[in-house]
C-alpha cells in the first residue's frame, strides 16, 4: 500500500518581515525629511500593521492538511478577529498615550503597509514542500 507523503507549507515569515521592515525604514526616513515627529509617527504606523499581521500569519498556519480543514477555518476566523482587535487597541493606545503624533504620517504609512503587505503575500507565496 502506497501512502502519499504529506506536504508541509513553508511560510516565509522571516523574509516578509525583513522586506516589510526595510520598506518601513525607507518610508520613515522619507517622512523624517519633513520632521522627526513625522518620522517616528510613520514608524509607529508601520509597526501597528506589522505586529498584528505577524500574529495573524502565525495563527493561520498553526494547523495544516485536509484532516484539519475545520481547524484551518477556525484559526482563520480567530486570527482575523484578533488582528483587527489588536490593530484597534494599538491605534487607541497611540492616540491616547503618545501625545505628539503626526497623524497624516501615521495613517499614510499604515495604509501603505496594509496595501504593500497584501501585494507582498501575493508575490512571495508560502510554498508547499515535502
Amino acid at each position, binding site marked *: 500500500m502506497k501512502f502519499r507523503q504529506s506536504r508541509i*507549507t513553508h511560510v516565509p515569515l522571516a523574509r516578509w518581515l525583513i522586506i516589510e521592515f526595510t520598506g518601513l525604514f525607507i518610508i520613515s526616513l522619507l517622512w523624517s525629511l519633513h520632521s522627526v515627529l513625522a518620522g517616528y509617527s510613520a514608524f509607529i504606523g508601520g509597526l501597528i500593521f506589522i505586529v498584528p499581521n505577524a500574529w495573524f500569519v502565525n495563527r493561520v498556519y498553526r494547523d*495544516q492538511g*485536509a484532516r484539519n480543514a475545520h481547524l484551518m477555518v477556525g484559526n482563520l476566523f480567530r486570527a482575523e478577529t484578533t488582528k483587527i482587535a489588536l*490593530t484597534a487597541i494599538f491605534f*487607541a493606545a497611540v492616540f491616547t498615550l503618545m501625545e505628539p503624533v503626526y497623524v497624516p504620517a501615521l495613517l499614510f504609512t499604515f495604509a501603505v503597509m496594509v496595501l504593500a503587505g*497584501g501585494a507582498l503575500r501575493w508575490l512571495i507565496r508560502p510554498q508547499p514542500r515535502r
Partner: protein
Amino acid sequence: MEMVFIAAAIIIGMGALATGIGFGILGGKLLEATARQPEMANQLQVKTFIMAGLLDAVPMIGVGIAMYLIFVVAG
C-alpha cells in the same frame, strides 16, 4: 460631536459586516474545495491566506480612521 461617534461606529460596523461576509464565503469555499480535493488542501490554504490579506485591507484602514475620529477628533 455625536456625529463623529456615529461616523466611527458606521465605519467599524460596515467594515466588520463586510469582512464577516467575505470571510464566511472564503472559509465556506475552503471547506468545500478541501472536501472535494483533499490533496489540494495546502495549496488551497495558501490561496485562502492571500485572499484573506486582500479582503481585510480596507476594513483595517477603516479601523485606523475610526480610532482617529474617536480619540483625536472627538477626544
